[in-house]
């Protein structure tokens, strides 16, 4: 009898997954701005789900930034974003900088920061806060490969995210390997070197691998973040593309050196 019910359960799950997602949910997808990624995502990122962003220890800042940018895209304008970090991460990778966020086009005043002593506390903080529908998104930054972050934990996060409609971004820094999880999407993020033909100090560039996508395709893209438009873009492939892009906005002329800010 138990075997039968398990089989029935499996069947139900397959049926639900085959059916994909409802039209209502489909309409909620949020475009990232990068044509390739948006196409693979079937129109954009689904809010109210769990999304995982993996980054190497050396690329931890790219992971944080990429997740923060996704969160900015997905969350309602002006809503509060809860960012849960372990105190240890701040020592290892550096503290989040308000001005750094601001320079990426993200309002630091929207950030509510939680610094926990360990992973268990971080998970608990994120999980408990998911009952608060007023939040725009929850960032949960986890270091390495804690045992407590298993399939059950990610299912719980997914379930609660679905109930409240708050999107969860799980940033996995220096994780040895991807763990099985209930996440909607899984990204591997690395820094993308600035192309040689670009003369000046440019926008943040990422090499983003969408390794898992529950309702769509996967892919690898070079993505550029525009701090002004607050969208992702394709990285220009040749100097001409760069020029046409630059012409769209004011010329990012080199600042006269040395820039001087004196306090006093």
């Amino acid at each position: 009898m138990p075997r039968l019910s398990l089989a029935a359960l499996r069947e139900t799950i397959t049926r639900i997954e085959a059916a994909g997602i409802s039209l209502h949910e489909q309409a909620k997808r949020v475009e990232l701005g990068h044509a390739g990624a948006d196409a693979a995502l079937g129109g954009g990122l689904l809010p109210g789900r769990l999304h995982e962003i993996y980054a190497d220890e050396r690329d931890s800042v790219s992971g944080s930034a990429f997740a923060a940018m996704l969160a900015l895209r997905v969350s309602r304008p002006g809503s509060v974003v809860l960012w849960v970090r372990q105190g240890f991460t701040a020592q290892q990778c550096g503290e989040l900088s308000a001005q750094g966020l601001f320079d990426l086009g993200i309002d630091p005043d929207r950030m509510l920061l939680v610094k926990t002593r360990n992973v268990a506390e971080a998970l608990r903080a994120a999980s408990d806060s998911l009952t608060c529908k007023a939040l725009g998104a929850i960032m949960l930054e986890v270091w390495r490969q804690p045992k407590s972050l298993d399939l059950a934990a990610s299912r719980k996060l997914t379930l609660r995210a679905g109930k409240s409609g708050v999107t969860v971004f799980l940033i996995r820094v220096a994780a040895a390997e991807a763990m099985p999880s209930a996440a909607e999407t899984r990204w591997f993020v690395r820094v993308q070197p600035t192309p040689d033909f670009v003369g000046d100090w440019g926008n943040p560039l990422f090499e983003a691998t969408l390794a898992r996508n529950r309702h769509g395709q996967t892919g690898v893209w070079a993505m550029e973040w525009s701090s002004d438009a607050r969208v992702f873009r394709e990285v220009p492939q040749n100097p001409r593309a760069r020029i046409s892009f630059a012409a769209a906005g004011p010329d990012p002329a080199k600042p006269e050196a040395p820039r001087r800010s004196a306090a006093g």
Partner: protein
Amino acid sequence: MPPAELPLVVVAKISNALQLTATDALAVRNGLHAGLPLADARARVPALDVVEADEAADRALIEAIADWCDRFTPLVALDLPYGLLLDVTGCAHLFGGEAALLQSLCGFVRKQEISVQAAIAGTSVAARTLARGTDGVIVQNGNEREAVASLPVTALLQNDKIVYALKRAGLKTIGEVASRSSSELTARFGASFSFLLQQALGENGQPIVPRRPLPDYVAERRFAEPVATAEVILRTIASLASTLENLLEERDQGARRLEASFFRTDGAVRHIALDTGKPLRDATQIAAYYAERLEVLADPVDPGFGFDLVRLSALATEPLEYKAADLEASQDETEIAALIERLSARFGPERITRFLSLDTHVPEHAAAFCPAQRGQGPSAWPQMRLEGEAPRRPLHMLSPPERIDNTMAEFPDGPPARFVWRRAAHRIVRAEGPERIAMEWWRDAEAKTRDYFQLEDEGGRRFWVYRDGLYDREADKQHDREAENQHDREAENPRWFMHGLFA
């Protein structure tokens, strides 16, 4: 064969000589007393067990006993070095009358093998005098004069010049002293002495100065059988919270600082404080916050053999007003405020923060993490990046900045072409800068001006590094008069630091 018991004396160095500060009963029978030099004591009784005084330990013990005494009244004062004063006005009936209270207090202290003398009287000085001279006396208001009359003057004052003067004048008991006229005493021993005497005689009672702040509102529950399970404790807190809510409601107040006190049967007392961002009254919320707080205590409340008294007090309160703004505040704002309270109760207010912008150019001081409970003022973040430009400040900032080694620059005052950071070598292909940032002399006079560079290595990783101090030639121009060899040293070995990482 166990060694014969020796008279025990405690000694301390007072005015450069070892003096007895305390003695046991055996030592007293041998004619020793506090204040005697150790050399004299040894002359009288050669075989002594001498222990050095430990003031800190004495203080800790008296504090612990005082903590335990909090169960009788919130008004407990230390009367150092060995005394405690309790204001039991209006409390005694809760413990079955003054005699029962005194008995239960002394019984407990004696159970810990601490000898104690106690008394109850109309003024604190009278009670203290009685406790020093006798034990277990309860004097009704107005009868203090007779009660203290037969006591020696040492019960009133100890180790004091006045005591010797009184003895030389032939006044051995308090009664004899009191028989002299007040003006006579004031002329001879000062106004403070005659005031002390008046209080000992039950006049001019002064309030005691309690060691802990007096709570505005208190709810407590006593248990005949000690309770120990977390479930019962939480339920107790919940019911105390609703009592407190009623008390607060009567006065239209809300609590800003709460304290739960757990009195263990063995005398240990644990206080758990809880600060709130806004005046709080709702019992369900108070109970919920305490549930959060108690669950994550690094050092959990250990019930031992159980608690026999749990108390919830509001230490600080504020009027709880429903402003028009509160009604207008969006549902979202209310929810976020509740979330902040919940998380703060659980993890501690200092761990739930928001960015606070500070008006300074020094990068590490430009923003602070401010407890979110304190609310948020309008922040002004400077627009450093022009439109179309890339970020000028990194997303991750190292605190403190980390030294980078093996820096090599293509030209002397330029950015490093390669460096080693955290044991990894980086070859730089792209650099922007310098951005010169002068330190604030009022913060740190020693801090040097920094030249910041934005660097990108072969792999595309972007760093924010700075050279600590100006490059030699510039430095000479700016600080002509300063010692030149110092600059030479700096120029030879400019120190570079990693301050942040760009996305």
